């Protein structure tokens, strides 16, 4: 137990833990200190110089994020001296950042504008100095706009410290310093977007598609279908003032309809299909002892990682397409036939917690009869921006359920949004499939060993006397040791982002450890409340799979995929 100590902030006595930083202590006690560069995912850097405080006995002002609480410290957060330095530093930062407010999805919650407004800062004394900076685009997923960068370096920390990809580096020094992709041929971006979800000013961000979607929504001739991912229902509320983890499914649906979508489907339906395809494939591979361990492929950043860094593992990836692509494919085939709509007239927009899903949606090998299963991908942030921009009263809309027949899904689909969820879903259904025709088979629904926020989760389970050695890698930064001993496993799930999709690069900001935990708990809680826990119980999915089975060529196109060696 850390020692409890007494400090004073603005003459108020506060009891806190020794060693906690002042920024954190102040926040906990309802004392506002502004800050831009600090993020609980990283050690404090103290580089933005906004969270300045005056401490008795200190010669200079100090950054509250880097000062640890010691017994007897007396801190002032809002003296004239603090105001003067802090406001000047905000002004200096503002002069680094070229405002592109007109089209910036950040406009509605921009920390720079908030600070300027709060402290009434004149932001026009200095000339913008970064007008000529480059924008680096990473596939169609993420971009780094140098004209907006405030040099906080969070993107580098995200890419190096969390993800251990090391794709971003600092070039030059002083005012010439610039964050750039490395030139090393052996390093490449995996499009996870952790840089974006840690950038305080939208310099690292998703490549926006909301404007294109807005245009297509006006097209009367098209049938506009929205799909939304499992994890976003527990996070999008945060954009509108709700607690992290609040399930907002029935607000998401009417919001999308209000934006102009004709139909709104749940990717959970696709997830149940994915589970069935993957579970079957797992049993087959285990039986034939071929291409083991089988690796999950729902995470497009992980797929890109394998394709670039470990192409030798491509045969190990499951051939099952991801829930997003399954959903899109089923809508453009099965549903199109059912509704008697030409697939060419269907536009599918999926709302994802992810930037790499944009890259996935554009993979040519996924085309079905010449059409992409998903036409546009929006991040949660993009959708929230569209909702706000169109003054849709999210949270107060008349609740509406997802459209049928893709409204029904299992609890297993929901937990796809959390690290370990894909594997648990597959195990639930694999157990069911392996037990088919058997009279006695042990029931197991919860596979708690694979849940949680640890970096690597390992366990062995037995399914109908088949022993499966499992590993779940939570966050690509933890992949190293597992790759080294990959032969020791039969089935491995990898999610590139911390916590899985609930910590994805397209999620609302801030996304912190605490928030990831709340979103994750919400998904497991919701799963527990479902009567239907396994994908194999979803009759509508079984119906679709049966329909596809009759068209073997189409079945393969809709359900399976192949990968590309990108080394």
């Amino acid at each position, binding site marked *: 137990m850390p020692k409890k100590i007494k400090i004073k902030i603005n003459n108020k006595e506060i009891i806190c833990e020794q060693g906690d930083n002042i920024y954190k202590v102040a926040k906990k006690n309802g004392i506002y200190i502004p800050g831009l560069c600090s993020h609980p995912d990283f050690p*404090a*850097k*103290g*580089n*933005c*110089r*906004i969270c*300045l405080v005056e401490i008795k006995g200190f010669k*200079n*002002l100090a950054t509250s994020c*880097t000062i640890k609480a010691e017994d007897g410290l007396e801190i002032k957060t809002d003296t004239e*001296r603090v105001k*003067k*330095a*802090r406001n*000047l*530093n905000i002004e*200096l*930062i503002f*002069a*680094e950042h070229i405002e592109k407010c007109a089209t910036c999805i950040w406009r509605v919650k921009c920390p720079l504008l908030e600070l300027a407004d709060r402290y009434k800062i004149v932001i026009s*004394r*200095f*000339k913008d*100095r970064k007008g000529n900076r480059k924008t680096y685009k990473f596939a169609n997923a993420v971009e780094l706009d140098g004209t907006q960068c*405030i*040099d906080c370096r969070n993107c580098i920390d995200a890419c190096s410290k969390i993800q251990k990809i090391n794709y971003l580096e*600092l070039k*030059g*020094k*002083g*005012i*010439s*310093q610039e964050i750039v992709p490395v030139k090393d041929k052996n390093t490449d971006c995996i499009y996870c977007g952790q840089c974006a979800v840690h950038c305080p000013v939208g310099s690292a961000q998703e490549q926006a598609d909301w404007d294109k979607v807005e245009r297509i929504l006006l097209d009367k001739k098209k049938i506009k279908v929205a799909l939304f991912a499992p994890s976003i229902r527990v996070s999008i509320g945060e954009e509108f003032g709700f607690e992290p983890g609040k399930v907002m499914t029935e607000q998401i649906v009417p919001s999308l309809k209000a934006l102009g979508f004709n139909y709104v489907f749940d990717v959970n339906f696709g997830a149940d299909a994915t589970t069935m395809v993957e579970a079957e494939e797992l049993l087959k591979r285990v039986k034939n002892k071929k291409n083991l361990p089988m690796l999950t492929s729902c995470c497009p950043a992980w797929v890109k990682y394998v394709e670039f860094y470990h192409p030798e593992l491509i045969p190990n990836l499951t051939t099952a397409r991801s829930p997003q692509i399954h959903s899109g494919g089923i809508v453009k085939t099965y549903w199109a036939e059912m509704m008697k709509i030409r697939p060419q007239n269907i536009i599918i927009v999926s709302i994802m917690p992810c930037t790499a899903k944009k890259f996935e949606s554009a993979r040519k090998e996924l085309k079905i009869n010449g059409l992409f299963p998903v036409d546009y991908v929006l991040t949660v942030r993009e959708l929230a921006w569209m909702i706000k921009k169109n003054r849709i009263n999210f949270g107060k809309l008349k609740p509406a359920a997802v459209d049928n027949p893709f409204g029904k899904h299992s609890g297993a689909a929901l937990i796809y949004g959390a690290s370990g969820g894909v594997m648990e879903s597959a195990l639930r259904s694999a157990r069911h499939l392996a037990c088919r025709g058997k009279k006695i088979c042990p029931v197991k629904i919860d596979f708690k060993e694979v849940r949680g926020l640890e970096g690597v989760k390992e366990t062995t389970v037995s399914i109908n006397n088949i022993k499966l050695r499992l590993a779940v890698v939570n966050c690509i930064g933890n992949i190293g040791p597992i790759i080294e001993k990959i032969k020791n496993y039969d089935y491995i799930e990898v999610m590139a982002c911390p916590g899985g999709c609930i910590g994805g690069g397209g999620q609302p900001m801030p996304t912190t450890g605490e928030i990831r935990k709340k979103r994750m708990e919400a998904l497991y809680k919701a799963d527990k409340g479902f009567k239907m826990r396994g994908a194999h119980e979803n009759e509508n999915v079984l119906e679709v799979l049966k329909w596809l089975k009759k068209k073997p060529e189409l079945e393969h196109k809709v359900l399976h995929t192949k990968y590309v060696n990108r080394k």
Partner: protein
Amino acid sequence: MDILTKIKEAGLVGRGGASFPTWRKWAMVKDALGEKKYVVCNASEGEPGVKKDKYILENYPEQVIDGIQRAMEFLLAERAFIYLNPDYFKELKPKLEKFIGNAKYIELFKKPHGSGYIGGEETGCINTIEGERTEPRLRPPFPTTNGLWGYPTLINNVETFYNVSIVVAGKYKKNRFYTIDGDCLWEGVYELPENYTIERILKETRNYPDFSFFVQAGGAASGEILNSDGLKKPASGVGSIRIYSLEKHNPKDLILNWLNFFQRQSCGQCTTCREGTYRLVEEIKKNKLDWELINDLLANLEDSSFCALGYSAPIAVSSFLKNALPLISKNRIV
């Protein structure tokens, strides 16, 4: 008497600029827990106008290396680095290697070109030796407990190691090395008592000007500007004195020179220094000066920078405005 007591009684303080009591630093590293310990002799000498470290290495390499070895024995350190300014490295390598001889645990480390001023700051120096970007680290933790590769590390200036050696030999006379340059006849490095005032140093070296002048004491970048009324105190910091003739220099050029230096040397880590030094240069270049903004930017550097480079960036300009500019006709700067 043990070495720590000898150093303490001699009253040695750091000669890299900060004047921290040497015995305390040694004791901190000694008391720090660590499987290994390191010693670094800092010969970065990045402050313009200072040449004394080079002078000492050229003339007393044996004593410097002796001082390093004594520190290593005291701390049971396993390796030492002589962290050399790249120009010095080229020139002094053969000589230093000769004196290091078989003591292979002392390594010469060439400070990379471009690592600049901040490469001499303790934590910047540690980052550089570790192969990291040359930038200061957050303090605490201090190098005394978390230095090279996380191990307790003693970093002292060349002159300090030299002093340790002569203290042990019983030859320390409370002298220090002064670099004198600028508008004077007898530029050079002088060894004189540490308590001499600037005025006396200039007189004893026959450099006291017979024209209107001001001096910059403690480094030609971060040193304080003093007029002839302010010379009754010792030369602080790195012990250097640059003399400026009042007539010869354009105030605006001087200010720009100082600010340009810091802008070029700023590592880029913190807003205050990266943006502040740049904006100051831009402001000073203007025809009509916004003194309120300039003063705010100067004060901000001193109060909210990340490291000592930022803190010291405004010293020359601020003290120039206070102590020298009033002697110059105002219309020369606007």
